[in-house]
Every structure is written in C-alpha cells, then in structure tokens.
C-alpha cells in the first residue's frame, strides 16, 4: 500500500480526514472525507470543497502462479540472509486473492498540490528490492538505499526519463534521484543478482497508490467529478474503471487483474 512509501498517501488531509482514511483502510471499505467537517479535536469548522477519499482492492481471480525458488548460491552473502528459500513471485497474491504491487492511479487527474516535500524509498534488503514497486511524483526524491553488505548495482531504464546505473558497494549508502516526466512501469534491476527486479512509477499528480499485500489501496481525496481509475501490474497488464465521485457518497473500486 501507500504505507510502503515514506511520504503520506494523502498529503494535506485534515486530522479528521486522516483518522477516517486510516479506519477505512483497515476495514477494506472506504469513507467520505468532508473538508468542511468539524475538526474532531478543537471543534473548528474547516472550509473547502466536499471531497472523497476513494479506496478499494485489487484481486487476482483463480490460482496464482506458484513461483520459482531463487538460486542465490552465486552470492553466499545473499543466500545466508534467508533461513528458507526465497520464492520469486512475479504475481504476489494473499490467501484471499488480494493482489500486491499494483499501481492504482487516476488518469487525467487534477494536478492537485505541488509534490510533497517527502521522499519515497527503494531499499535493497537481503538481496531483494523493497518494495517490489514504488511510485513517486514528478520531481519527487526517490531514495535508493543498499541495506546489504554486498555490492548491488541499480540499473534503471526508463523510456521517457533519463536512465542511470548506480554501483552501491557500501552497506547503508543512499543515492537520490528524481524523474522529470511521468512514466509508468520503469524497470529496475540488478545485473549482479539477476533475480532482483523492481518497478518505479512516476506520476504528475498525487492520486495514486500501490496495493499492499492484501490488495487494498487508498487514494487521496478527490474532488467531485468523473474519473478513469487504472490498475497496472508489471506482469498482468492494466485494467480500468470509470467512477463518478459525488459529494458525500462513499465509493469502492474493485479491480480484477489476470486469472
């Protein structure tokens, strides 16, 4: 989910809005956030438009691919970081069909506020990328960290942005990069450890989220209107829904990908 990112998924929420969003995320439902609602703590009336915090879930119908055990014997350091064999799962599905690592974003979204002064994180832990997919806004800082005591290279190969290939031989070192153009599905890989793959998404607005291990997601507040919401997965492709956001009405978006 967006919680895997460093920055808040719904920047600018009022305290009340943040509390509601947290509650509905946990329940798998969604809630309405009135920017004009009474603040729960001090009773002040906040001004603004009626907005909606949209949320939902992405599922994978049927039986997901089993995945293959990763052979880490080429680098004993990597192998020794795991007590059990690591399974390479391009499609991560929980027991309830929830599909992880899916980018859910609003196409033609309102530009919204400027990019938050926060950072997203792409880490390398136990010779695996964490998270498997990360999303940032245009010009937002992406921190790329090596938490391993072994050499990783981080090869990022966009098509609309400038690519790079970083050598990170030192445990704990961090590199910072940003992307100037929106681009979905930028591949990230390590040429030394061929099983390491991740994906970076760059969007020119803030209305997006990455599904968590249970397939759920929570989008920031949207102004009323009609929107096309798309779900994107590296292996399973895309699907989309057109939703109408009406003042005061809850909305839940359900996607199915693959199967």
């Amino acid at each position: 989910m967006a919680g895997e990112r460093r920055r808040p998924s719904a920047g600018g929420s009022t305290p009340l809005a943040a509390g509601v969003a947290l509650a509905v995320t946990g329940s798998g439902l969604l809630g309405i956030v009135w920017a004009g609602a009474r603040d729960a703590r001090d009773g002040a009336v906040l001004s603004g438009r009626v907005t909606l915090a949209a949320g939902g879930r992405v599922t994978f119908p049927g039986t997901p691919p089993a995945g293959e055990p990763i052979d880490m014997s080429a680098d004993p350091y990597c192998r020794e970081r795991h007590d059990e064999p690591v399974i390479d799962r391009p499609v991560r599905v929980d027991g309830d069909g929830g599909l992880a690592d899916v980018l859910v974003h609003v196409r033609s979204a309102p530009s919204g506020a400027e990019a938050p002064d926060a950072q997203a994180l792409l880490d390398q832990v136990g010779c695996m990328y964490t998270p498997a997919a990360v999303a940032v806004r245009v010009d937002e800082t992406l921190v790329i960290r090596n938490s391993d005591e072994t050499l990783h290279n981080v090869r990022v190969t966009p098509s609309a942005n400038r690519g790079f290939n970083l050598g990170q031989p030192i445990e704990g070192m961090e590199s910072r990069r940003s992307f100037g153009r929106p681009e979905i599905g930028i591949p990230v890989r390590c040429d030394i450890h061929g099983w390491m793959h991740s994906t970076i998404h760059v969007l020119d607005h803030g209305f997006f989220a990455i599904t968590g291990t249970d397939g759920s997601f929570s989008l920031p507040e949207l102004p009323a209107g009609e929107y096309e919401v798309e779900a994107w997965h590296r292996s399973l492709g895309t699907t989309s829904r057109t939703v109408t956001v009406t003042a005061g009405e809850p909305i839940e978006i359900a996607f199915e990908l693959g199967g």
Partner: protein
Amino acid sequence: MPRHGGSGARGRAACAAACAALAWAAPPATAQDGAALYEAGCASCHGADGTGASPDRIAFDDPLPDFRECSFASREPDADWIAVAHAGGPVRGFSETMPAFGEAFDGAQLQAIMDHIRTFCDDPAWPAGELNLPRPLVTEKAYPEDEAVWTTTVRTESPAAVVHETVYEKRFGPRSQIEVKLPFGFAEAPTGELGPGGEPQTDWGAGLGDVTVGIKHAVAHDDRSIFSLGTEVVLPTGDADRGLGADAVRVEPFAAFGHVLPADAFLHLQGGVELSTDTGAAEHEAFWRGVIGKTFTSGEFGRAWSPMVEILGSMELEGDADPSWDLVPQMQVTLNTRQHVMLNFGVRVPVTNTDARATELMIYLLWDWFDGGLFDGW
C-alpha cells in the same frame, strides 16, 4: 572465485573497515585500501584476480575484460579508467552495464582502486597509457600505437596542391610498432607553355605519392617519459614531376621522445636524418622537431582539447644551405564519447626560406582502432 569463498569473506570484512572509514571520509586511500575497495566494488563482476567473473556468477552477457592482459590494460591512462568507474560505462561510450561508482567512492579511493588494477598486469615492459600523448600533425610520437590517420595538406600558393596521406600503424609486442604511409593527391604543375601574357602555364593532375614503411621501438620508458628509435623507408612511388614524390629511395632513422609535464602539459621531441640513394633527386637531410602542448577537458569527463605548437627544423647535409624553420600551431580535439576518434587542424607556417616554401593548411582525422570501430562510442 575468492569472493564467493573464504577469501571473499575476508575481503568483505576488510572492506567493512576500509569502506566504513573511507566511504565519505577524508583520509587519502592507500594501496591496501585499494585492494579492499576493489574487492567490495569491482570483484563481483571483474573477479578478484581481474580476469572477470564467470557467467554463472553474474546476470549479464557483456564480455568482461581481462585486467591481466597487458595489451588491453596498459594502454589507456588512469583518467579514462577513473572516468568510467566514476560515471559509468556510457561516459566513454562503453556498455551501460558498467555502473557509476562516483557516489560510493571519492577520487582518492578510485585512484587507489586504479592502482590496484594496475598490479594485475605484472609485465613492466608495457609503457603506461599516460605516455600516449596527443599526436602532433608532423612530429612522430614515441609511444607505439594502433591507429589509422588520414591527413590532408592544402597548399594554396602556386604550385598549389592537395595531398592526402593515409597512415596505418600496428603495434606488436609491448613496445614496437610498424606503419605504412600511403600518400596521394592533386597538384598543380607547369606545362612548359606560356600564356598570352608570357606567364608560365600550369595544370592540375592527380597522382600517388611516395609510399613509406616504418618500424619503431620504445627502448626505454618510466612513469613520465618514453624514448623510441625507429626507421622509415620512403619508396619513389610518387609523381616527382608533379611534386608528389622524389625519384630516390630515402631511409630515415630517427629518435623520438615523449614527456609528461605537470598540469596535463606534454612535450614531444624528434630528430633524425633522411639519407637518399640519389642525391641528384633528393639531398641528404637532417631534421629536428619539438612540440609542446596541454590538454584541457570540457567539464569533468568531456571532450579533450589539446592545443599544441610544433617547431620544425631541417637542413640539407651537403652544401651551405641554411636550415629551414617552420611553426605549426594546431588544435587536437576528441570527437566522440569514447575519445578514440580525434581531429587535429593547424597551419604550417614557414619562418625561414619563405620565398621557396608556402604556408600549408593541415588537418587529420585519427582513429585509434584498438578501442573500437570508427562508428562506435559516439
């Protein structure tokens, strides 16, 4: 490889100390640090022994160089290697698989790694790449090369000429080189007739010049200097009537010296004699040449500009002819990212005997073919 066995663990432990102390710290890196840093940053792909990791240890197919192979590992200067290590392969037109380590290691650490890489070639007979100085328009370098050079000389004053010379140089062994020069061109020559006003008439014609074969051997070198001896044999294949050759075989033994000066400056010296088999067609001659220049780099790792000035002197060994002196200001510039294709342009200006000799425009295109195809690395 050791990295994947016991010594790899030792190397990692050594790096844990060296890297932690040096990663973003000030102390200058030492040779010992260089070995540990190489183990941490390079050995995974290039192998602890510099021969390159086996394909089952890495996840890419690009062929890896063998750092023990002196013919490959010795001929480029440290600066080019460090540029690639700092900014990644594309900075010199090489594979994108080579990552950039500029955020992991500072300049001193990269130099320490470079010093360690230099230990893989353990044959001191190979002159260092630092001695491969920018090539002047006329003076012969002391460093043996694998190059092809196309030089065009344009003389605009009568008798005018446009002469092209193709030079192919092939290095063999650590210190030796053979070369072939093939000149051809267009030249103006008198017809023997007079015009309406009584002025001599000329016409233009094309022809082959005198083909030259040569050999050169670097007899001594150290970190900053290289000294070579060589001989060229000039064959009378050219059109002498058109000024594209001389009707005599000439032999040109010479000595050449190159020296690295501080602040990226450099010096070339060459001296020799041209001994003719027919002094009626070509006189015996002595020649001496000197070049001083300096290389400037655009940005941190960009295009290299090398302004130079050549001083050329020659004198016939028989008779009482005065020596001839020429000045050749010139500018060499690298054209492509890999920097193995270069252009040099200049003007050869006679300083003495100016009535008999004309100013010439000179330009060459140089392709260091050992470093890749002509169209690679742009």
